[in-house]
């Protein structure tokens, strides 16, 4: 067995075993068995790092691929297999998932301390990590879908962890159903691909697509359907509504699932399928615009929210929009790179917010303030995360975001009509810097707005701050200085894919775009530094020194403010239109079933009874009548003859004798006559 094969097995088996053990006996173990989960995930992380080391460092090659697959079952004409597909992208994604999962496990020890069902929380985390590793490692569409759904269900369990709260119970069902709508599209995409290519394994499907077994409109539809899965999981417009609500889950969950890993699954999937996706320019355009809409409008919502986790949630949606746009415009590496940097700094931000909530006992930023002095570590790390997300140079977010902007600019410069993508991202970047620093200022600066909770605030325990520090280091180091995108580019992405990305970017356009690469890069970089600085400055003006009153501004643009504050009423739209329709139709159908269908069935009963009454009457008066007449005659005869029966034996004998005599005589006469 190849070393990578063994490692893959172990990476998958450990969290799954931890899940099983925790579910079975976790409650009876000392410390509720958290050491088992942490041990398992830490080992998995070690193995992930080994895989990374082996693939990226020891045996590095631009198009390294290790694939192994096992037979699973046969569906008749399709052979279902499952297996591992490890290339540079897998290796890097494994590390991202492993690191974030491990840190969240450790963080949860402190954060969830003393919670009811503590062991079950770790069990769910284990299930989630397993599903995520499976999603990263798998080598075919069917297993991908399985992992995809398992990720969904573990997020359902985790969001609903505080199930006695109504809001949590609502949030988990909402998350599952919304993402499942996306999943159905994804399944449909798989169905289409299987129908045309007859294959499930990535490699075979890509080959089939390259050979044109599926192309044109059908391919576009299949890709857009597949992308539907990503829209659900990665919370893209219009299926983003579940993510802010999902913050009802415990904060480590928000950090693990809803910031770093699960929501990145969609982006990873698109990245994994890029060789196929890049074959359809129309589909790529759809993806780019979906991403743009998401990035832009989630940013506008984040500006007005007051709940610290909601701000982060919308910022997550917005950043995911960036990644998707990057993939859509063909900036494949930039998208995946941003996925990694975002995973680290967003997990950091969420865990920091958890630390803040843990200390302040509220999620409302208006209740906080001045926490800087009370929680120095949390403040410092959160500031690092914020600088990273805002795209300040030397932090990780800068490199990746800049790469995305450059990709969008290049795309726009080739297809003039789509320059909107770049402009939209550009504006959204400014808003990102603005709302993130708004968060920092409201939480850590100024006066405390709630003295009581301020007095009780304190720095979190080491099990919570250590992960913060590690993630903070990663948030800086992940950037690798100014031009991190380059190493990432060369390390992770095989040349063939880079070409495909290029081809996608240039698809339909004339040559010439390639010449201007240098100015595009430096132009984009300059612009993004400028816009980030502008956002931070404005935020400082409004929330730092308060030269401009936030309230007055909000009042001045009240309709827009309301629109943003109420998240563009998308939730209300679903509630009032979609859900109301389903609820209405189910009532109508149930009534139809009861009244019409069952009514017809039950109607047969009175009809039968009517028929039966008629035939019964006929039977009674006519058929039976004749019979009864006969009976009447017999009865009359009987009542006469009964008089002979007097019970005196002697009279019987006499009668018998007389009868015998009569018979004799009659017999004689008859003989005589005969």
């Amino acid at each position, binding site marked *: 067995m190849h070393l990578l094969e063994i490692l893959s097995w172990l990476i998958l088996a450990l969290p799954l075993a931890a899940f099983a053990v925790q579910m079975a006996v976790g409650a009876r173990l000392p410390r509720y068995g958290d050491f088992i989960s942490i041990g398992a995930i830490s080992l998995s992380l070690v193995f992930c790092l080994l895989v990374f080391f082996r693939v990226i460092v020891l045996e590095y090659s631009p198009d390294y691929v290790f694939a192994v697959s096992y037979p*699973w*079952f*046969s*569906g*008749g*004409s*399709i052979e279902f297999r499952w297996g591992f597909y490890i290339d540079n992208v897998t290796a890097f994604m494994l590390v991202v998932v492993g690191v974030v999962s491990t840190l969240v496990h450790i963080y949860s020890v402190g954060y969830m301390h003393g919670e009811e069902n503590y062991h079950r929380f770790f069990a769910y985390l284990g299930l989630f990590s397993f599903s995520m590793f499976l999603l990263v490692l798998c080598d075919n569409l*069917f297993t991908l*879908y*399985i*992992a995809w*759904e*398992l990720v969904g*269900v573990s997020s*359902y369990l985790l969001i*609903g962890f505080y*199930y*006695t*709260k*109504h809001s*949590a*119970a*609502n949030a*988990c*069902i909402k998350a*599952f*159903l919304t993402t*499942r*709508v996306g*999943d*159905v599209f994804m*399944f*449909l995409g798989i*169905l*289409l691909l*299987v*129908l045309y290519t007859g294959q499930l394994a990535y490699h075979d499907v890509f080959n089939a697509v390259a050979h044109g077994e599926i192309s044109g409109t059908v391919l576009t539809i299949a890709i857009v359907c597949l992308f539907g899965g990503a829209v659900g999981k990665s919370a893209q417009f219009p299926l983003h509504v579940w993510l802010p609500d999902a913050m009802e889950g415990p904060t480590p969950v928000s950090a693990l699932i809803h910031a770093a890993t699960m929501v990145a699954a969609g982006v990873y999937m698109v990245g994994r399928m890029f060789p196929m996706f890049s074959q359809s320019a129309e589909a790529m355009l759809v993806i780019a615009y979906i991403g743009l809409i998401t990035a832009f409008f989630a940013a506008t919502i984040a500006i007005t929210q007051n709940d610290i986790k909601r701000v982060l949630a919308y910022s997550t949606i917005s950043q995911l929009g960036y990644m998707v746009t990057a993939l859509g415009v063909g900036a494949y590496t930039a998208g995946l790179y941003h996925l990694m940097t975002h995973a680290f700094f967003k997990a950091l931000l969420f865990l920091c917010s958890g630390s803040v909530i843990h200390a302040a006992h509220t999620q409302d930023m208006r209740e906080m303030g001045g926490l800087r002095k009370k929680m120095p570590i949390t403040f410092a790390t959160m500031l690092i995360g914020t600088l990273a997300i805002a795209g300040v140079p030397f932090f990780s977010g800068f490199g990746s975001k800049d790469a995305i902007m450059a990709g969008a600019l290049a795309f726009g410069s080739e297809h003039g009509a789509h320059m909107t993508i770049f402009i939209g991202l550009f504006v959204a970047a400014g808003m990102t810097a603005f709302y993130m620093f708004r968060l920092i200022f409201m939480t850590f600066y100024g006066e405390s707005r709630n003295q009581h909770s301020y007095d009780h605030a304190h720095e979190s325990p080491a099990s919570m701050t250590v992960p913060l520090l590690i993630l903070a280091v990663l948030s800086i180091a992940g950037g690798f200085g100014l031009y991190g995108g380059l190493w990432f580019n060369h390390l992770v992405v095989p040349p063939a894919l880079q070409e495909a990305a290029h081809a996608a970017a240039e698809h339909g356009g004339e040559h010439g775009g390639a010449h201007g690469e240098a100015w595009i890069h430096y132009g984009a970089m300059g612009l993004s530094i400028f816009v980030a600085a502008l956002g931070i400055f404005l935020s400082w003006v409004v929330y730092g020194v308060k030269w401009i009153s936030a309230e007055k501004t909000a009042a001045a643009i009240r309709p827009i403010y309301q629109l943003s504050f109420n998240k563009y009423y998308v939730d209300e739209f679903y509630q009032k239109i979609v859900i109301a329709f*389903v*609820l209405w*139709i*189910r*009532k109508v*159908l*149930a009534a139809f*079933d009861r009244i019409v*269908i*069952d009514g*017809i*069935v039950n109607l047969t009963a009175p009809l039968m009874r009517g028929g039966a009454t008629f035939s019964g009457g006929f039977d009674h008066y006519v058929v039976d009548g004749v019979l009864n007449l006969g009976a009447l005659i017999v009865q009359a005869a009987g009542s006469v003859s009964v008089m002979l029966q007097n019970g005196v034996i002697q009279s019987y004998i006499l009668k018998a004798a007389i009868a015998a005599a009569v018979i004799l005589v009659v017999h004689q006469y008859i003989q005589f006559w005969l």
Partner: protein
Amino acid sequence: MESQTHLLTWMTFFPLIGAVLVLITPSRAKTFIKQLAFVFTLPSLALGVQMLRLYDPAAGLQFVERVSWISYFNIEYYIGADGLSVPMLFLTVLLCPICILASWGINDRVKGYFALFLLLETGMLGVFSALDFFLFYVFWELMLLPMYFLIGIWGGPRREYAAIKFFLYTLFGSVFLLIAMIVIYLNTGGSFDLVALREQIASSPLGSAARVQWWLFLGMYVAFAIKIPAFPFHTWLPDAHVEAPTAISVILAGILLKMGTYGILRIAYPLFPEMAQQFALFIAIIALINIVYGALCAMAQTDLKKLVAYSSISHMGYVMLGMAALTPEGMNGAVLQMFNHGTITAMLFLLVGVIYDRAHHRNIDGFGGLAKNLPIYSGFTCLAFFASLGLPGLSGFISEALVFLGAFPVFMVITIIGLSGIVITAAYILWTYQRVFLGPLNEKYAELPDCSIREQVMLYPLAFIVILLGVFPHLILQIFQPTMMQLIEIVTKG
């Protein structure tokens, strides 16, 4: 080897021996009767396991026994098992002991109940193993009677209505089956042999009489569709389920419904292959209605048992869809779904029964927050619910995915609309789970005890199978796959 040659007979009639023994036991000895009934379902289970071990998928019909029965009419005692019947037989022998355990709470007229139950088991096993049309029909009707009494005597408040509805409906269907059987008998020179009948029909005047075939197929379809139950013949099911005692609901949903699709696959398809193709679109449309309409109706229910009943209607739609597609994936998916639905829905009904025993009502909105106090129970329910909504890793997913994969190339639009059923199913199941188990605890039920050992004993095997087949579907898939491929060949060639 002697015992193996008579494996099916022993398996079928062992419960009948038990029924006789139950009848001669004094009716005061209630616990003894229950134990006796339980013990007499076990040999069948053991034989079922043995059958799974001995069955060779490549070899076609096995365990065949053939004795003349009523020689004047050419009726034979002809039984055997192929890939289609083996999973169904196993499902039956598996569920019956579990149902006996689930009936432990029956204390009224115990003797009659268990005797009828064992008789029912014999009837069901007979249906799944009969290879003689007449014998099939006899068992088909034999099963009806105990069912009628079990619902009508030990049922809920509206038991008479439900029992009579069930009885008349099924009888109504049986008439068509009987007519079809007689017509075929008369036209093939007097044959009831289901194995040979296909060729006999093809070479008889019937073989070229498409019109007659059309009517015969329709008649059989109606007979079996009532059992499935397919829209619009489905309304007996919710009523029967709501009134029937728990164990009978389990049998009804777990096994009896499968007889409808089993009948179509065993009799209607191979006897009239051309008609099977002609009717495919029609069946697919009905299947679609079942899936979507059943799911939406389920969403509207307030009674937990009715909800599960409608979900059965919806899930049987997948079986029909796969069947109609006549593709390898579709057929395999359909049979797999028959088996999986049997285990999953059995779990669901058992779980409903468990909570009904405690709370004495089944109103979904009347509970709330039960997960807090009933961890084992809610764990089982969670598993069963997720299996029912087709979560990967659990058995329901594989069969649904196969059905969709199989149906998509043939009925593209229908499959796409049918996919919406996945979301609707998830919606009503999770919504139900939320209303019953999540949210703040309803103080009324703060003192409910969790699952007893007996209840766990009946739930664990099913849970195990649900997970096992979700991960290793080929364990059961490989049994019927060759048979299904053969059937497809027969039908598409015809």
